[in-house]
């Protein structure tokens, strides 16, 4: 073991589990399927909207090799991520509301039998009107998806902070524009998979699943099975990407559990790519109308914003999403007067959910686009305009959010200088352009989804006779690196050799509860809980060493693998001896660390004011350079410069990866990704047609880390993953305008969309030319 204290944080190091993953040794849920488990398959609705008169499973049930068949009749307990909006059944009852909604499920001895059983299921239905767009949902005579939801509105939000009327009156320029963003899916690499084992003798269930929130899955599975949470154990193996796709309990997790109990055994379930995409929970299609007031020198005097989101068939996270879309109008610039109206609409499409940048992305894209457009009208540089609207110092936003650290100005400086912005903007050759935008995101929701009074994060360090430190963590590593971060924090505090440390994660029977990997809370909250635990363990060991050394604890210096008397290195005990001393009379040590966001960070007092509340915002600025092909109208992204204020980079290598990943995901939404529906039926549910970018479209991404050292983050750290995304689509459109002179208000900027705009301009130019020929006397009179 090392003689010098090991360094933990601030180190560029590969992810703790990175080598296993890139070499294929890591086992994901489907790799762990027991060979003797039954095969579970879901029968899905072939219709987007229909009343279920009968679900006839008799033929399927009598097929030899079929062990269990379940339908909506087997579970009448609804579920949903928000306690106040649980309106989804694991298997549809009475009505189906989207194409692909689970209706029945079978467990059979093999895949072919399960497949044949599905083909034997008969549905008797009365078809209902398909409400597959915002316009149809809001039409005065529209059929309603849910009782007690008039107008198909899941939630309306209306709030005004400050005085927007006065703000607009004080402006020199007021502009308003509506922006449209297509629905996108997470397109995570690993399709959904789970297996459930019901132990009839003990009446206990063990569920392995690819979740980001094993705790919520645990609660909802117990709820829908009508059993005590004590009877459930949830294990999360490695997860192959998530991005919000698995941030709530998903129907298949409950279905596979119901099947296992019905079959009194183990059932495995591997969803196809199409099924994974139908499970959806992606970013909703949205219409965003923004109105900004600006002074001649670029100061924003007021903001008014209306957002309508096509939320899909069930509540899911919808209320949070529509609240986020308004809340994060604040917290990035110093705007005093902000009005927001949000409408979350029910439609016969798969339920949307919380996708990377939850709720905030399309609002930010619209805001940034209008801000840049107005800057151009006032002949101001867009970067300069953002500087003029910077938040002056630690402050509270009009809607009660606290800004404690703010590195946006440094982010702007970095990308402006590195990209050569001043030399390139407006000066590139025809068909080339450069654009920019900013964005931000929370470092964890300061108020948890389920309020329990418990700490927001808990970490346990176990130390036993062997001297090994087991970090017991419930934080769900879904590729973002939370396992690595907790190990780095423990090593930093204790200074111990890396080989002494193990991270044990996500087994509800072993690891402490964690709320889950959502709202970029883990580094901040779990990181702080880990820091607390490590400091406490250090104190225990220092006291033990002091006893052995027969000095007071404050006379002991910890060097990681040994403890010395201050000023006398010859008097030392090893880590092992300190551990042995610490175990005397107590035995195995379990040291617990916790973290709770103080109440003053938990948001404004208005209804929904907790959404958007956080202890620290990350800030990002990016510059994007593009070329547009005049023949194919295809946009190529040639270079990206992205800067992120993540407070402090506990692992700069991992932070760079997160920034690149976030920017890349924004590029997908900006360039080419969108879900498609044919009469309400999702029809590009595969990786060929969905169209996320590939390596071929990925330009060099130059990354800059800005460290503003947040006063509350662990070692000053904030989030690093979601913030960099939202700037991209706006920066892209800005760059395309610089290249083509065409302004776009709709994403993605597909070749087809750009071709249409170019054709429209060509038509206008031809018409203008004809007019000029006919009326030479008035031409150019302006």
């Amino acid at each position: 073991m090392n003689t010098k204290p090991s360094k933990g944080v601030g180190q560029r190091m590969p992810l703790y589990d990175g080598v296993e993953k890139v070499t294929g040794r890591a086992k994901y849920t489907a790799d762990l399927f027991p060979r003797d488990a039954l095969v579970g398959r879901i029968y899905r609705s072939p219709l987007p909207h229909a009343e279920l008169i009968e679900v006839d499973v008799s033929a399927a049930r009598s097929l030899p090799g079929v062990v269990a068949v379940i339908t909506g009749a087997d579970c009448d307990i609804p579920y949903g991520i928000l306690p106040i909006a649980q309106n989804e059944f694991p298997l549809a009852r009475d009505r189906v509301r989207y194409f692909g909604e689970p209706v029945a499920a079978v467990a059979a001895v093999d895949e072919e039998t399960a497949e044949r059983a599905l083909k034997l299921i008969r549905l008797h239905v009365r078809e209902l009107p398909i409400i597959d767009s915002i316009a149809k949902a809001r039409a005065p005579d529209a059929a309603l998806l849910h009782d007690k939801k008039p107008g198909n509105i899941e939630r309306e939000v209306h709030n005004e902070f400050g005085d927007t009327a006065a703000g607009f009156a004080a402006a020199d320029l007021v502009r308003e524009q509506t922006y449209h963003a297509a629905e996108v899916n997470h397109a995570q690499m690993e399709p959904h998979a789970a297996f459930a084992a019901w132990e009839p003798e003990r009446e206990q269930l063990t569920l392995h699943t690819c979740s980001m929130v094993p705790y919520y899955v645990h609660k909802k599975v117990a709820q829908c099975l009508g059993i005590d949470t004590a009877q459930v154990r949830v294990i999360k193996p490695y997860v192959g990407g998530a991005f919000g796709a698995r941030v709530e309990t998903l129907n298949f997790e409950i279905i596979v559990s119901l099947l296992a109990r019905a079959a009194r055994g183990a059932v495995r379930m591997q969803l196809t790519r199409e099924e994974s995409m139908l499970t959806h929970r992606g970013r909703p299609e949205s219409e965003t109308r923004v109105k900004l007031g600006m002074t001649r020198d670029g100061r924003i005097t007021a903001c008014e914003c209306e957002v309508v989101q096509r939320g899909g068939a069930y509540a899911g996270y919808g209320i949070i999403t529509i609240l986020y879309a308004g809340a994060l109008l604040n917290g990035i610039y110093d705007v005093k007067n902000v009005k927001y109206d949000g409408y979350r609409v029910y439609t016969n499409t798969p339920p949307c959910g919380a996708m990377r940048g939850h709720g905030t992305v399309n609002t930010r894209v619209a805001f940034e686009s209008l801000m840049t457009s107005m800057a151009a009208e006032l002949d101001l540089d867009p970067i300069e305009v953002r500087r003029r609207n910077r938040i002056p110092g630690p402050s509270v936003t009009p809607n009660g959010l606290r800004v404690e650290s703010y590195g946006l100005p440094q982010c702007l400086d970095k990308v402006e200088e590195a990209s050569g912005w001043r030399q390139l903007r407006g000066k590139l050759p025809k068909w080339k352009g450069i654009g920019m935008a900013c964005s931000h995101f929370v470092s964890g929701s300061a108020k948890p989804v389920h309020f329990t009074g418990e700490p927001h994060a808990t970490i346990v360090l176990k130390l036993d006779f062997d001297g090994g430190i087991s970090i017991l963590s419930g934080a769900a590593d879904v590729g973002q690196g939370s396992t690595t971060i907790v190990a780095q924090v423990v090593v930093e505090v204790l200074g111990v050799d890396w080989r002494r440390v193990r991270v044990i994660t996500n087994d509800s029977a072993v690891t402490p509860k964690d709320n889950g990997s959502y709202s970029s809370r883990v580094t901040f909250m779990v990181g702080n809980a880990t820091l607390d635990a490590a400091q406490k363990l250090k104190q225990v060991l220092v006291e033990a060493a002091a006893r052995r050394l027969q000095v007071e604890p404050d006379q002991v210096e910890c060097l990681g693998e040994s403890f010395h008397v201050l000023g006398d290195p010859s008097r030392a005990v090893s880590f092992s001896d300190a551990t042995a001393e610490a175990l005397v009379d107590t035995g195995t040590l379990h040291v617990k660390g916790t973290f709770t966001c103080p109440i003053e960070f938990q948001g404004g007092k208005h209804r929904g004011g907790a959404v958007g509340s956080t202890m620290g915002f990350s800030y990002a600025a990016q510059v994007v350079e593009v070329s547009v092909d005049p023949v194919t109208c295809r946009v190529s992204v040639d270079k990206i410069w992205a800067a992120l204020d993540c407070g402090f980079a506990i692992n700069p290598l991992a932070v760079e990866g997160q920034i690149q990943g976030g920017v890349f995901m924004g590029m997908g939404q900006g360039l080419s990704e969108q879900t498609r529906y044919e009469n309400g039926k999702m029809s590009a549910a595969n990786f060929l047609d969905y169209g996320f970018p590939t390596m071929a479209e990925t330009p060099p991404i130059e990354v800059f880390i800005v460290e503003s050292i947040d006063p509350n983050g662990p070692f000053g750290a904030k989030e690093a993953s979601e913030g960099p995304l939202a700037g991209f689509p706006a920066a892209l459109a800005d760059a395309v305008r610089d290249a083509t002179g065409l302004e776009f208000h709709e994403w993605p900027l597909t070749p087809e969309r750009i071709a249409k705009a170019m054709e429209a301009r060509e038509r206008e130019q031809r018409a203008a030319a004809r007019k000029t020929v006919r009326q030479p006397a008035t031409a150019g009179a302006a």
Partner: protein
Amino acid sequence: MQELDIVKPASVAEAVSLHGGAVGARYLAGGTDLVPNMRRGLQKSRKLVDITGIEELRQIAFENGALRIGAGVTLEALCASDLVRRHAPLLALAASQVAGPTHRAAATLGGNLMQDTRCYFYNQSDFWRTANEYCMKAEGTICRVAPSSSRCWASYCGDVAPAMLVLGAEVDISGPTGNRREPLAALYADDGLQHLKLGPGDLLVSVEVPAQSGWTAGYEKVRVRGTIDFPLAGIAVAIKREGNRIADLRVACTGVNAYPGLVPNLEAWRGKEPDEAFFAALEKAVRKEIQPMESTLTAAGYRKRVALGLARKLVGELFESAGA
């Protein structure tokens, strides 16, 4: 997926004999087209004749001024072949644009030339097609792209065929009824359902491509992403130039019809200068040849626009570079 009977012959003769023209039997090479279609229930074949063990199909040779390329040569091998790069670089260029690198490592020339036609209503899962009442190409009766039409409008989306067409390739076919050689163009029919004129058990053995020397040639495809995607439209051009005049010109299209096709009647421009009248006539000729329908997620109008634009651009650029 269904249970399969897979046989693996060692020679062309044995392959043809094992296939025997049996209903539902298919030749299997790289499988990059066939296997995904089988998984989606689009191909119900129960018997597969795996031809990847036949050495003869993997040969590339150059003799008598022509390249002879076995149908079992992978696209990766085709791209890397010195013979191909020297004598028909256009083929390597076109093959390098097929799908992604992992596909090209498995996919073969024969499979690419004969790949199934594609359509938004056809290349879907069994679940999706069941819910959408199928289409005439698989299990249904109407063409979902053009419901009042009596034909199938799925489009051919191979990248190598148009390049082969402009170089005047011929194909050798073995089958239960004997061997034959014919122009590549004769292999194709204007029918999304049956776009290949092959008899039961016919096996494409090799392709003979005259050397490219004297021609300046290029291939470009349009797709949403820079890799993996099939062409929304693809144009291959071969041109000969004498002074400021076009000595000869061939243009072929892919992705915009049920077959890869040469644009007819370009001979009329031999000996003429490529002025604006020529380019207008070229666009007109291409417009007449192609018929993209709403068979892709990208609108047909866009595919038409870029096919015309690409033809104009490629011919112009290649004429310039032929003079350099």
